């Protein structure tokens, strides 16, 4: 664990170094990529709570990522076109203020994770995997067939939503906003993991029956973890829409669920910074392989299979072992 902490310091260093380099060498694309890593990292940190710490294999986190994304897209779409969002029972208009959008995105994704969790957690094992997948897919098909917000073509919002006193269109400023949320979600995870509640959901991963037998209502614990996990992922979705100034059904596609899961596994499960490292590795792979060949996903698939078959503990785990041997 001490070694992991040492690595975490390096990760923090890179989080500051990379955008600084971007500014010095005047490469805004670099900063945008780093922002993407940070946002996808947040999504992974959300999933990691349910998957890595509580053992809930959700293949449906794209649902929450997409909901956060669509809430943001829809609110700012209405603000842009000056239309009311709905007129009954209260007339509500859209908004392009991040400070208003975030709480709404958080609330809506919490609500959806609550409903989906309530239904899915009645089952376990393979059923749980398939049902979370199916619910995400349901929202995906809904987003395609609902014509008001672009349907299959998606929704463009042209301008990033605004934050008081900050020019969000500046890549570095937006990076800082995303970085804040990353640190915040890491902080929340850390606090949760070390709390009594965190002990109980980590114990559920080990042996649910035993946790039940000491009198903890495991269903409630799992549901709460699932909701927190989905909400963090939803927040990442909200930032992702702002990053791209665009949201489309692709964010709800089950490939997104798979990719978020890949971040968690690549980095190393149940490690606080694991998903961030996983996301960074994924984006780096996409960029380098993508520049050599159009069929980069083929190689990505191959690398993933090799990692799963032979390097179970992920990238951070790999370093962990090496350093232990050197000692």
């Amino acid at each position: 664990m001490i070694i992991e902490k040492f690595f975490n310091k390096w990760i923090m260093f890179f989080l500051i170094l990379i955008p600084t380099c971007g500014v010095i060498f005047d490469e805004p694309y670099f900063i945008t990529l780093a922002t993407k890593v940070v946002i996808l990292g947040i999504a992974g940190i959300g999933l990691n709570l349910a998957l890595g710490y509580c053992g809930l294999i959700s293949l449906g986190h794209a649902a929450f990522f997409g909901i956060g994304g669509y809430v943001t897209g829809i609110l700012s779409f209405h603000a842009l076109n000056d239309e009311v969002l709905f007129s009954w029972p209260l007339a509500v208009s859209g908004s392009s203020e991040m400070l208003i959008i975030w709480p709404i995105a958080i609330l809506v994704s919490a609500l959806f994770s609550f409903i989906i969790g309530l239904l899915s957690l009645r089952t376990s094992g393979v059923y749980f995997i398939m049902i979370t997948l199916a619910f995400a897919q349901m929202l995906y098909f809904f987003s395609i067939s609902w014509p008001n917000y672009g349907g299959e073509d998606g929704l463009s919002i042209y301008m990033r939503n605004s934050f008081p006193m900050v020019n969000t269109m500046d890549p570095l400023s937006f990076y800082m906003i995303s970085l804040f949320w990353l640190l915040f979600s890491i902080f929340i995870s850390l606090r949760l993991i070390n709390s009594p509640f965190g002990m109980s959901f980590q114990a559920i991963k080990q042996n649910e029956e035993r946790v039940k037998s000491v009198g903890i209502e495991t269903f409630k614990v799992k549901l709460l973890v699932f909701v927190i996990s989905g909400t963090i992922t939803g927040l990442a979705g909200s930032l992702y829409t702002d990053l791209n100034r665009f949201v489309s059904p692709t964010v709800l596609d089950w490939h997104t669920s798979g990719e978020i899961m890949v971040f968690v596994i690549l980095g190393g499960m149940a490690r606080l910074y694991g998903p961030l490292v996983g996301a960074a590795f994924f984006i780096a792979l996409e960029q380098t392989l993508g520049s050599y060949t159009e069929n980069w996903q083929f190689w990505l698939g191959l690398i993933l299979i090799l990692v799963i078959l032979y390097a179970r503990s992920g990238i951070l785990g790999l370093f962990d072992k090496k350093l232990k041997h050197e000692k």
Partner: protein
Amino acid sequence: MKSPKTNNSLMTLILFFEQLLNGIQFGTMLFLMSAGLTLIFGVMGLINLAHGSFYMIGAFSAALIAALTESFWLALLASLAGAAIAGVLIEIIIIRRLYRRDHLDQVLATFALILLLSEGVRWCFGAFPLYLNIPNVLNGTVPIFDNIIYSKYRLFIIFMGFLIALGLYILITKTRLGIRIRAGQNDRQMISALGVDISKLYTIVFAIGASLAGLAGAMIGAIQSVEVGMGEPILILAFVVIVIGGIGSIKGALVGSILVGVTDTIGRIFLPELLKVFMESSNATSVGSSIGSMLIYILMALILIIKPSGLFGKS
């Protein structure tokens, strides 16, 4: 003379019947997918996300052979053979190592396999969709009752689906291989202790599942188009089917498939019509089609509330 109203309701009835048949046709194809999926899970305990890739491989094998020989029947055979060969190879190289792993590893490895296979097929065949032609014998329509005509090819699909369901039933209940498969479902260690070559049995089961998916891909490929990623939507529907039917149960897969196929087809057509009674027509169409696309998932949620282990699943 018939009044316009009865005429109208007769039309609705005909439309309903046609859509019912379409739903059953869709359901039989879902059955080919979900039977393999549920068999593989039941016997090997493997959750295989890459099952849709065999659907795609079957369709591409068929399109390739159809282009070379211009025979639809050879193409169907090729779909079975192509998917089975791919199934055997992939089982031996990769899947075999996953049986002992937990579900998470299986999900990730087979997810990675999808990326690899989809991109591999795109590499070989290009990004443009291919087309498979329906043979002349099956082109056109046949009258079923007085007023109802229906596509011959779709009837053929329904027929094939039920034929294969029957074949699977005989295979599982009456043959030696079937006994081994059932024994494998019940107690893996015991049957390997009794001298059954378990890894060969697993390869065979995997190949059967893959070839059924491949056949479904070829048959649907002739109605739609043969393209990369064609297996994914149907894969997820097959998941819904086996969740509804109960994982590991072939009977459940059959009932679930027909249920999902019919609900999906009928819902998409009739829900907008139904909603027109309550709201204005353009709204009804958009709301109806959006809810129609969610209907099977709502069905799944309802069944889960009543019976969390599916209709025929062991709790």
